[in-house]
Structure formats: C-alpha cells, structure tokens
C-alpha cells in the first residue's frame, strides 16, 4: 500500500511542490522537482528531517540582557521546541567569547553543542 507525502522545496524561491510516494520506509518515487535539489530535499525531509536552531539565553553583567546562541549542527525537527526549552534554562555571566561552548552532546546528540554566537564584555 503506497502512501504520499507532500513537501515544498526550499532550495530556491520557486518552491516546487514535491510529492514523495513511499511504501512504509521505502521511497518509491519523488515527483514535482524542477532540479535535482528537490529530490534530495524530499528524501532528507522524509527520512530524517533536521533543523538548525538559534535562540538567546539570559546573561548577567553585560550591556544586553540576552546572549545569542545556536546549536552547532542541525537537530531533529520534532525536537526544536524541546531544545529551545532546554536552552532557555541557561543563565550565563559576562564576559563570554564567541564560540564558547555552553552545552555539549545536547539532547543526547553526540557532538552537538550549544555555542555562544557573540562576544560580550563585562560591564
């Protein structure tokens, strides 16, 4: 019994409507792409959709109240909100340097770090 999943390609502003036909976990066909990026995107979205993520955390002793941070590698799409919740529990203190690692193996994903996106001096 084959099923169809629909995606909108994000490769460029055309936004090709993609149709991915699958039987269970097996991909049967990908239609609708006007270039080869479409199929690749649909396959990734079907098998393991991931997203990069950035947000801010509380910082003490700096000019601003929030420090921008990001995850160093994409995380599973369905865990983005959970990730934000975890990161927001952080509170850091100035000074902070760009690239400082705040959390390692984030969400149990090996090698994924939460890192500071900018330097903030102590004021």
């Amino acid at each position: 019994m084959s099923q169809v999943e629909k995606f909108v390609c994000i490769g460029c502003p055309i936004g090709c409507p993609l149709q991915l036909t699958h039987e269970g976990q097996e991909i049967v066909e990908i239609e609708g792409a006007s270039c080869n990026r479409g199929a690749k995107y649909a396959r990734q979205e079907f098998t393991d959709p991931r997203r990069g993520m950035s947000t801010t955390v509380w910082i003490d002793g700096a000019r601003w109240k929030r420090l921008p941070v990001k995850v160093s590698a994409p995380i599973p799409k369905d865990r983005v909100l959970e990730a934000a919740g975890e990161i927001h529990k952080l509170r850091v203190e100035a000074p902070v340097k760009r690239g400082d690692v705040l959390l390692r193996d984030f969400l149990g994903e090996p090698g994924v770090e939460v890192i500071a996106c900018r330097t903030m001096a102590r004021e």
Partner: protein
Amino acid sequence: MLGRIEGRYDVVVVGGGPAGLGAALGARDSGAERILVVDREPETGGILLQCIHSGFGLHHFKEELTGPEYAERFLERVVDHDIDVISGSYVSSVGIDSDGDKHVRILREGRGISTVESKSVVLAMGCRERTRGAVRIPGTRPSGVLTAGLAQKLVNMMGMLPGKRIAILGSGDIGLIMARRLTLEGCEVVGVFELMPYSNGLTRNVVQCLEDFGIPLHLSTTVAQIHGRDRLEKITVAPVGPGFVPDLSRAWEVECDTLLLSIGLVPENELSQSLGVELDVITRGPRVSSSMETSLPGIFACGNVLHVHDLVDFVTEEALKAGRFAGEYAQGIRRPKDNITLVPGNNVRYCVPHTLAPGREHTIYMRAKEPMKPCLIKVGDLMQRKLGFVVPAEMIMFKIKPDVLDRFHGDTLRIDILPYEKEGGR
C-alpha cells in the same frame, strides 16, 4: 576605543553595519591610508546584531553564520586592518568646501562634537522599517502595534517579549523569522497576513518559520481595523479584492495582544538629502554611477541606504566595491564619467548602478516587479540570460563582462525581463 578623532581622513564611512564595514575594508584594499567608520549605535555591526538566526555569510565566509557571528568576524577584519571605528557617534552633517574636501560633523557620545576632514565619504546608513502610518490601518492607537524589527530588538537583545499572542502583517523575511523566534520563546503566533497573492519572504523561511510550527499564512489578506483602547485587543482581517481594497463582507476578527508589522523597508537618506545627493524615486536611495559614486563627486553609497537588499553577502560585495572607488578617489584617481545610462524596461522595478562605463566588468543588482517563470533577462541587444524564475522578494544579480559593452555605441541601455517558453515545453 579611540580618543581624539580630529584631523584629516582619506575616507570617512557613515554607518557601521555590514555596508559600512565592507566599504572601509574596500577603501583599505585600494590603498587609502586613514579610514574612519562612524557608527551611531553603541556597538558596531548594525542590524546584524539583532538578527540571531543563521543564513548569513554563505558567499563571503563560505559557511552559514548567524548575524552576530557575521558582524563580529567582519569587525575583527576591519580592526586588524587598522581602520578607526567609533561607535555611539552620529554624523549630523557633511559639508563640501570649494576644494572638494568634505567636512564631517560628528556628535560623539561622551566626547562632544567634532568635525573631521575627509577626501571622500561613503554613505552606508542602512534603512528603516515602514510603519503603521505608511499603510494607514484604520482603528485605535493602542500599544502592542510595532514593527517586526523593534520586536526583534526587544526579544533578542533586551530580553523582553512584545506580547503573548501575536499576529503579523506582512510576510517579509523579518516577519517570518520573528514568527519562529516568538514561537520558540513561548508566544502564540496566530497568523501571518499578506496583502499580495504571494509571500514576500524566502520559501525557506515560509517552510521553516511558519509551516514547521503550524502557523497559518493568509495570502491576499490584510488587517482592516485595529481594536483596543490602551493595549491591542483584536484585529479585523479581510481578504482583499481588486485594487487591494479589503472585502469587509468576508472579514473576520482575530484576538491578539500584539501586531507586528513587516511591511517593507525604506532607505534612510535624510543625510544624503541634506547634502543634495540626487535620489532615485523608485529605490529611494541615491542614483549612483558604476563606481558607486552619487551625483556629488567624492560621495559614494552602498548597502541598504542605496537600495534594500535581502542578502547581507550582496551588501558586502557592493560595499567592498564602493569602498575601493572611494579609496581611489581619495588618492586622486579620477575615472572618466560613465557614458551609458541603464533604463529599467519590462518587469524591471529598478536596477543599480544607474550608469555604466565601457572597459570594466559590472555587477548589476535589480528587482522584478512581479513573479515570472521561466524568463529571460535581456540587456539591450548585447546579452541575455535565462532564469528559472524571478520574484520581487529576491534580488537579481548578474555580471556584464567588459568586452560586452565594447560592442555598444548608444547612450541608453534597456534591461527587460521577458517571459520565455522552454523549448519543447516541460
């Protein structure tokens, strides 16, 4: 950072965002010696500092960076190149004396007012957001109606939320990015309303900022009324009919305490106007030659003050170029005046620069008036390029090789975007 700034400079750059920093590096690259960047904000980096999402730098740094990372890395290069940067400083006027020297008057936080002399000046003041007044939404004037950029600053830097239940008018990229940002911070984003039948943001942002979180995007829909005495209580939204007039018979009400406006950006050219720089009525930025020089000799412009960009990498490229020519000018190098005027033709909203000169390679930035796919960009009879698509939200950039213009003998060159049928259909 710096104490006294009195004295003579080769190049003074007004604005410390990506355009200003890029121009300063370009000026250094050209061999100019004394370069000063004047930034009005307390920290240099411009609006990038509040754009904490990633997607910057793919062209320039060959990796995907967040706004603050891009700004900091760029600033490091500028400082490494021994360029003077002052923040918290505001250029109130630029005077030009009879020798063509520029006198830049600077109000500097904590240090008073001083005037520096410079051989050339680069305008890189950026842009501002259109406000409620620009679209005349009827209704009351409660708090809770603000631009998406101000909301971004409140959330990302000051640690506050603009409200808890958010509606967004306009699907520009800042609005889409803020929809996701506020969702991650625990707000409920009830919908994005877009006047046009298509989104004004990148598809990637529509998918990753709205669809991922189940936020509805209502196309051909606008906010017809604002309700609430002290604080926003609800909005009336309505589909638009011909001429973008709201069809109130199909209107509905949306409860929300916040309405973000993401309805476009306008170059900030008050300083340019006070100088007497000639502006383009479409871009609302200066008219510039192929060396990014405005109608006033030795005054250059780049970045969002010139025309609103959607990618910072393009700003950087344009700014490096403007800086190089400003640096050359400061060293006494004068290029012959451009002798070809570019004319926007079919489905072309504008193109920058406004004039060209033969014998050099040119980068043309332009925008389409409406979506078209597939299509053909035609530069007079000189060259044409096929494109899979054009949309107003995405700036078009292409290069004209030096030898192409050698074949041209007229004074105006028209650029058209024309529909194009692929041979043999799909």
